[in-house]
């Protein structure tokens, strides 16, 4: 009997988050890598998770009625201690408490849940300092905000290394259209007078759509007033840097973005 208000966690919040360009925090398609604890603890945690948590959080913690847990930062549980307390106490009224878990169970669950959001530290051949210069001079800041600089049209890239591996970042720079966040959607609307409005879908409901244009301005449109509305999955205004950067420069840029993490 799964029922009730599970979707309030998905569609509305997801749509709202589109406007805030939180799509850079969308579920990572990359495999999480555990960096601490033991394999047996991880196995116990996974087993407990799959028996008790997947109804709301999905089989791999990717979310459903409950929030997606495959992210490096959990808003309600920024530390392991907070996550442990959350599992023990629940979040009334939606999330039940875990009073039936032993202390070892809770530790194993914390271990497993944390592993879902870990992004591997990979060997980097580039120079982050040179990459930072490239980032500042090759147009990235025209669309992205990073550490407070730039323009907020595309996804924010501050501390991107916490959410994305070097492998993913390189792939996104080389072939951006194939590595878009799951909730990113480029749209093109044509008004009845012929005007074309193109940009990122910031929000949408059955009767209207809000589009963020390249200028950063928003347009709120009634669908009934449009002659056409094309949704263009896989399209993005971000260019490929495969040809415009040398391999060494690409290494540098990847190194800069992949090492952009919270201070330890």
């Amino acid at each position, binding site marked *: 009997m*799964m*029922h009730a208000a599970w*979707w309030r966690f998905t569609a*509305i919040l997801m749509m709202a988050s589109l406007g805030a360009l939180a799509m850079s925090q969308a579920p990572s398609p990359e495999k999480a890598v555990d960096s601490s604890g033991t394999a047996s603890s991880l196995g116990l945690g996974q087993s407990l998770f799959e*028996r008790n948590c997947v*109804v709301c959080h999905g089989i791999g913690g990717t979310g459903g009625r409950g929030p997606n847990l495959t992210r490096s930062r959990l808003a309600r549980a920024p530390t392991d201690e907070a996550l442990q307390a959350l599992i023990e106490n629940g979040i009334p009224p939606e999330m039940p408490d875990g009073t039936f878990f032993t202390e070892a169970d809770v530790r194993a669950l914390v271990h497993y849940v944390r592993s879902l959001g870990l992004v591997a530290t990979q060997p980097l051949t580039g120079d982050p300092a040179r990459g930072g210069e490239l980032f500042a001079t090759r147009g990235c800041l025209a669309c992205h905000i990073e550490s407070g600089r730039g323009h907020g049209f595309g996804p924010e890239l501050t501390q991107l290394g916490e959410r994305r591996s070097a492998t993913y970042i390189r792939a996104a720079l080389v072939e951006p259209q194939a590595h878009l966040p799951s909730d990113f959607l480029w749209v093109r609307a044509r008004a009845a007078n012929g005007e074309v409005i193109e940009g990122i879908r910031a929000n949408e*409901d*059955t009767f209207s759509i809000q589009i963020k244009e390249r200028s950063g301005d928003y347009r709120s449109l009634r669908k009934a007033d449009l002659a056409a509305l094309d949704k263009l999955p896989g399209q993005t205004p971000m260019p490929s840097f495969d040809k415009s950067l040398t391999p060494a420069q690409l290494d540098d840029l990847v190194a800069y973005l992949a090492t952009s993490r919270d201070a330890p």
Partner: protein
Amino acid sequence: MKRPNLHHCWVPLALTLTSSLAAAQGNVDGVKVPFERIVNAGREPGSWLTYSRDYSGARYSPLSEITASNVQNLRIKWMYQFPDAGNEVSPLVVDGIMYVTGPNTASALDARTGRVLWNWKRPIPADFHALGFGHVNRGGAVLGSNLYVGTLDGYLVALDLKSGAERWASQVADYHVGYSITGAPLALENKVITGVSGGEGGVRGLIDAYDAESGKRVWRFWTIPGPDDQRAFHTWAGDSAQTGGGPTWVTGAYDPELKLLYWGIGNPSPDWNGDARAGDNLYTDSVVALDTETGRLRWHFQFTAHDTHDWDACHVPVLFDGTAGGHRRKLLANANRNGFYYVLDRESGAFVTGQAYSKQTWSKGLDAKGRAMVQPHTDPTLEGTLVWPNMNGATLWFSPSYSPATELMYVPVRIKGARYFKRAMDFKPGIFYPGGGEDELSALEASGEIRAVHATTGAVAWRFPLLTPASSGVLSTAGNLVLSGTDEGNVFALDAMSGKPLWDFEAGSAVEANPISYELDNHQYIAISADRVLLVFGL
């Protein structure tokens, strides 16, 4: 009248009624809502006396002030802020007073202004765990001078309609082992019927009848059979019936002429791992017809045998009369969570017709008896099996609507797939017992519809596309309108004949409730909840 502070006045609170309200109440000292009033709900189109307005489950309003030509002028008349989020209530409106419920709460509101008349609250025990659902309540039932409400901690409570004072509280089932009540009761001649939640806890499902005056249990129907029902009992391998599930968390329908109660039954437990429960697993995912005097089973029809996808048949059965097979028949329709629309003969339970109404990939279709011809390789696996619909189904608990004016059934449709996983599972009372889970496909791969189908055949009349899978019930009216809401926050009206959109309103939060309509002072109102707010619209 000053609105009581909900956060500080959670006691039964008898307030002085305004003179105009008292006048509207009419027979304030006698039996306010005798059974005959509900049976004859058609005689008072301005009231909403039971969950679906009348016993047929049609959620159809005979009111016609609001029409296609003036619905564009709908405006908010008043709003009510619930004490809890995520409300799914279908209000009742009786003699100028609206009754709303929440998780272990109930309130009486002046239906003209939204002013609170009384509040009632029953504390939710600190050790209560909701297994697979939110803290919600979908509505109450009225009969005589009482309002009946189910509680999360498994009680059926009778409240005095005038004051909210508690008359009795009867324990239906123990929440410690996974039972709960989220659905609205159904009040009949002298009984109050309630179902239970618990399908993710391995409970033994039940439908109970309680004496409306005393609160004593009159009968119980177990949805998971015991050895005394050999035919059904043997549809469970080994001792799997002991943890078989079969919850009953959505309100049923009633035929006063046949004296039959119709009620939908939920999923078998564990949800996604059927290895230990080989067999059809009766009476899960079925609709049952019960004799209201005894609770005995008259007939059953199972929509999904040996379910491994959590496709509860917890829907409001819709009763209507139509021509099928060349003659007029008493029919029952069910747009099921499994993706098929069924028409049954409600006297015998015989299958009349059925067809898919949403994307589904698990069945090749229905055979002559209405049994699904299951596709191979659609069960959950360790690696995941992609199937449509996802576990929340092609529709969910929220109500469809049948209009006798158009003879169309309006179904809120969900189009979404998922990868289903199977996992090993141990049973512990009161703990999740799912046996797996799912990964939903992304929001970009999902959508919804309001679909109008010819009620007797299931053939499509029209479709109105929704951006996301449907999340709200549907109301149809004699004003040739269909009203519903969306997960994106829209409340909207469509033309009942064509599906053409006529009006919409942004509520600012997900709409996940059933709409109703009522009349006061010769004016029609529409009411629907959006998260924490009850919205009441009028011209």
